């Protein structure tokens, strides 16, 4: 490709130069030469003024380009200077009023009090803990605030919105698509209320645990028992989303 492009370029350059030589020969004709000279004399000052005006305009635009570049560099520097955000302990302002999550469990219908993550988790520049089989929540304030033993490990996928104290432990999350999730951990085997008319089925979670799923108009719920506790994930998104979060939940203590 490059080789025949070179050949083409060379051929075109030679054609251009030949045309120029032909034109030079034509300019020996006094009529054409005089006409060209006459045009030059008449329009020289105007065209030169145009080119000079462009120079001034270019110098103004150059100034703005320069200023914009400096601002961009400063902005980029500010962004890179900021510490890496700890997604799990990210201080997220909570919306006022009751949370929108309403799973069909009586306990959840009590007016819960949201405990904002900010109340206990101070922002920190330290890197977040890596998700491992047993997640250790290195920044202790949130780990202390979360009274349960299991928690969502995929910090990149889910953003913690708040913790809800009560007879069970409950945490609310959102994902990048804006879907809301609620994870609940009951300290003893419990049968949480399930939406009436929901379609029930048993599934295997990635670790082999058998879980009960309930899919209804209000959302999808996954319920399973582990270590004498009952865990539940509810989302208004699809059952697949609920199962994805369920697969993300691991023991942290």
């Amino acid at each position, binding site marked *: 490709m490059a080789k025949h492009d070179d050949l*083409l370029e060379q*051929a075109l350059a030679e054609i*251009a*130069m030949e*045309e120029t030589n032909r034109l030079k020969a034509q300019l020996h004709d006094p009529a054409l030469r005089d006409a060209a000279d006459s045009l030059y004399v008449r329009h*020289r000052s105007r065209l030169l003024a145009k080119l000079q005006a462009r120079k001034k305009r270019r110098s103004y635009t150059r100034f703005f380009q320069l200023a914009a570049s400096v601002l961009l560099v400063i902005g980029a520097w500010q962004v890179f200077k900021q510490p890496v955000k700890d997604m799990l302990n990210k201080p997220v302002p909570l919306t006022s009023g009751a949370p929108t999550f309403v799973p069909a469990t009586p306990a959840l219908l009590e007016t819960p009090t949201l405990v904002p993550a900010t109340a206990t988790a101070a922002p920190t520049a330290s890197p977040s803990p890596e998700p491992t089989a047993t997640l250790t929540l290195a920044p202790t304030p949130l780990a202390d605030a979360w009274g349960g033993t299991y928690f969502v490990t995929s910090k990149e996928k889910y953003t913690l919105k708040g913790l809800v104290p009560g007879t069970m432990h409950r945490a609310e999350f959102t994902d990048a698509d804006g879907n809301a999730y609620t994870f609940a951990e009951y300290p003893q085997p419990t049968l949480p209320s399930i939406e009436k008319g929901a379609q029930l089925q048993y599934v295997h979670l990635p670790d082999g645990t058998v879980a009960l799923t309930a899919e209804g108009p209000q959302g999808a719920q996954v319920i399973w028992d582990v270590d004498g506790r009952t865990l539940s994930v509810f989302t208004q998104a699809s059952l697949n989303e609920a199962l994805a979060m369920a697969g993300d939940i691991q023991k942290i203590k």
Partner: protein
Amino acid sequence: MLFLLLVDSPQDADFLSDLYQTYYRLLYGQALCVLRNAQDAEDAVSTAMIRLTSKIDVLRSLPCNKLEAYLVITVKNTAINAYRQRKRRVARSAGTVEDLQVSDPGTSPEHQVFSSLGVERVKNAIRALPQREQQALMMRYFQQLTDDEIARDLGLKPVSVRALISRGRARLAEILMQGGDADGQT
């Protein structure tokens, strides 16, 4: 990056002014040869010089003989475009506008043809192309204009420019394969 912005100095305009004053006879002579009209020739040279402000780097890099050829071809193409636009306006007012037909260029045969050829045969084949395709190839491969710049000059969409160039290259390959040349022996 900031340094590059500063290096592109206001002396560009002086450089262009010098070029204009050195080569004015060639520039106006070329425009007059194409347009046969003093006013149109003046407009074409003016337009070409203004457009050349975006090609300062290319101009500075050219040796003298190529530089004057570059200027001449730029004015020639500008003049041809002006002529076409004038003709199109007349045709439009008469209701006989021709739309550009864009077809699939099919570039594969040229790959096999070019490498074994001499420049003279390629030159002859280029001369055998329709003027529009010659012009587009010249703008792309000699003047080093971008698709957008060619589109602006030819009054086409960039996609049509790409098609025009591909078609020109394919036709060139076809001419070369058939052993044709500028004398119309295709």
